[in-house]
């Protein structure tokens, strides 16, 4: 099913310095798109950002990729490139691989200039081995720290090369330097597309079963709720570190009875108006990474977010 033309296309930003594994991550997402038709936007093709076996056809500024995906270059004019992608049909989501020194927050702000796009998530990819050294670099340090400060999710890549001590040290450091973000550890950029793009199914909103991606398995669970909920409280509770969630997406009724879309990426929550689902049942999909998701804990949170005066 093609998304309605009025549905804004979600845009995921992949930021991080050279060598962190951005391109590996992009290729992993393309190989595991799960039916999503992804448009990858890069500065310039130059050294090819896409694995050759994924490329079906090259013409001008657009590469046609396997599975209905494309890759295009925007040169030095990001906004114009995005205007083109926003109106392009047969695309479900957009992935921008930013230059190693770009600030993802600025790119995210540019998205608001283009009708038909929505900022989905900012992923900052780090090489677990070199990240802290890079953050102390005379020229790059402040850029790396600004990237981290603007991250929704820090993808701590090449984690297999880091010792346990380094991992613990990195987590402490990131708690301070990436206060908005949650951390996902990966090897070879193996991140679930559910985490990069949010839960997705072409025909209906249903939870994906955990699929066979490399690296740590995402834990995806879905919940139903027919009650009105205090969505602000729910968002805060779900975004809390203790849940182990890295993403959540729900169609739920707020305490006023209106249907809303609730999106959580890392620690950031967005609540926007939504249409009434056909069966009138509210749903929430939660995705964890690395650690198992405790179903009981989420159910308890949902219970606690029923407005206290809802029975009166």
């Amino acid at each position, binding site marked *: 099913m093609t998304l309605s033309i009025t549905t804004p296309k979600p845009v995921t930003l992949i930021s991080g*310095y*050279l*060598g962190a594994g951005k391109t590996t991550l992009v290729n992993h997402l393309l190989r595991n798109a799960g039916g999503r038709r992804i448009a990858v936007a*890069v*500065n*310039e*093709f*130059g*050294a090819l*950002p896409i694995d050759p076996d994924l490329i079906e056809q090259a013409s001008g500024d657009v590469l046609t990729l396997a599975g209905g995906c494309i890759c295009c*270059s925007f*040169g*030095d*004019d*990001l*906004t*114009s490139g995005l*205007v083109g992608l926003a109106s392009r049909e047969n695309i479900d989501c957009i992935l921008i691989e930013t*230059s*190693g*020194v770009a*600030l993802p927050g*600025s790119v995210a*702000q*540019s998205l*608001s*200039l*283009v*009708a*038909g796009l929505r900022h989905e998530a900012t992923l900052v990819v780090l090489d677990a081995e070199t990240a802290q050294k890079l953050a102390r670099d005379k*020229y*790059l340090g*402040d*850029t790396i720290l600004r990237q981290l400060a603007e991250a929704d999710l820090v993808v701590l890549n090449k984690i297999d090369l880091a010792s346990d001590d380094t991992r613990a040290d990195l987590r402490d450091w990131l708690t301070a330097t990436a206060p908005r973000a949650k951390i996902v550890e990966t090897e070879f950029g193996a991140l679930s597309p559910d985490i990069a793009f949010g839960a997705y199914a072409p025909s209906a909103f249903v939870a994906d079963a955990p699929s066979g991606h490399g690296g740590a398995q995402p834990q995806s669970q879905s919940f139903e709720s027919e009650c009105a909920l205090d969505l602000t409280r729910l968002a805060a509770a779900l975004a809390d570190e203790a849940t182990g969630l890295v993403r959540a997406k729900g169609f739920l009724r707020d305490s006023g009875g209106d249907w809303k879309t609730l999106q959580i990426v890392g620690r950031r929550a967005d609540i926007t108006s939504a249409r009434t689902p056909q069966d009138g049942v509210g749903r929430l999909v939660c995705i964890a990474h690395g650690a198992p998701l405790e179903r009981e804990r989420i159910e308890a949170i949902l219970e606690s977010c029923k407005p206290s005066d809802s029975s009166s």
Partner: protein
Amino acid sequence: MRENAANISSSVTRRPLPDFVPCIVAAARGDGNRVTATLHCRIGCREALAHNRKKQQGDMTTTIYSARKIITMNPARPTATHVAVRDGRILGAGTLEELTGWGDHIVDNRFADLILMPGFVEGHSHAFEGAVWRYVYCGWFDRVAPDGKNWTGLRSLDAVIARLAEQEKALPDAAAPLTGWGLDPIYFDNVRMTREDLDRISKDRPIGVMHASFHILNVNTKALEMAGLMRTGVNHPGVPLGADGLPTGEMKGPEAQGSVAAHVGLDRAMMSGDERGLRDFARLCVRKGVTTATDLANPLPPDTVEMMLRVTGDATYPARIVPLRRYLGDDARGTIEAAAALAEKSSDRLRLGLVKLVADGSIQGFSARLRWPGYYNGAGPGLWYIPPQRLAEALEAALELGVLVHTHTNGDEATELVLDTMETALRKHPSADHRFTLQHCQLADRAQFRRMARLGMSVNLFPNHHYYWGDEHYALTVGPERAERMNACRSALDYGVPLAIHSDAPVTPLAPLFTAWCAVNRVTASGRTLGETEKIGVYEALKAITLGPAWTLKLDGELGSIETGKRADFAVLEDDPTEIAPENLKDVRVWGTVHDGRIFEAAKI
């Protein structure tokens, strides 16, 4: 070319040419004793001449031009009264008597009342200076278009609106965009233009006005509607919102502009690959005495290269263009290799094979990378436009392959990064004569100039910026002390860094004598002298618009001075820049140019 026959005196002498001859190859006159060196040619002279003529398809006539004064920039012979030209090149500068030794000649007196200088070399401009004139000029200062029309400066927002409204009437198509450029509200006490101002001209037609700095674009409501931006919820620092939550129409920075640019007729492709623009650019060059100009950041796709070769190859194209290929993306070595391959396509009037890198942003946009303590108003540290690792890869590949690289560094931290990177790169690929050049390099301090000298780097500074934005730098961006040391021409020369100065046209007007005036006087638009100790002398400034930029392009053996063997490229002036008061240097009138021996009069271009 010699349409002005009345000025040509008939001193043509024809000597019969024997089949085998002592050919005169050098003649000099000293102390009244004529010394003639002779050499016996191995082939017949007629045969050799015919061969050369066929080979070069050139004009073997020798023309000796008289002038009121010839400022040669050749220290061995700083001034002369005559210059002899053959086949587009200079046989020599000296007295008429000296030059008659070259043999058959005609004497051309059309420049007898004029001053000849080496043709000016603009080392940092953009050919877009030609194309931008298709938009309506809205600037504060008078400015001359390629067709010679003087557009008077506009002194109020109302005057800007009035001119745009007048030009709007001429647009044939009701839906066609109306585009202006050159706006500078700094001079209107910073009164900001809004979309309502432009709506007064038309509510139905998209309208955009680009600021002089090219950093801000003002658009009307229609343009915002077409871009889907007449809505609440726009959240971007480059798009200020009014009390109604809707954009005011001011679009700051490339991202904000990119969302509306196409709707208001600002076609980015036109900025780099426009044929008419390239022709108009050369007309502006003639008006300002420029015979060689860079197009400093062109992506140079193959069709643009072919177009530029064709246009500059026209027999009447009056300038030499040096486009630098802009590096973008992730493949540094690939860019350098592609530039090296492009070099082989070079023609006499299109010199390819150079690369431009951009390290940081702009000072007035607060995106230049500044070292501690950063911006005077507390803005952040600026932005890198190239990952340092890619900079290193590009510089190393360029040193290895012998490709000349110019790097834009506005802030002093960007300059520092390039110096550090060059030091490492040179250790890997020692190069005695790389001539890598820092462009703008506006905030470099003396320690950095000393390092540039040690690393063999050149610098192309931006004195025009001092005039147009110096007051803003003093008050807002970098503060008084650093504003005074900006564009430190004196320091560059004192520490032995080869110096060029530039306009960055169309950011500021293409006019090397104005640029020289800025470097000599360091006056700002408000009249403040900013940085007394960084002033340079008139002769030094003239060198920085001739031999200096020629050096940075590795063309100083061919251009930049009037001496034997060099191209017959002259700036033809009505006033003597070395006699006029230094504070009036910018007022020196330009008659036109001579390019490869071809004469171009500004009034007829």
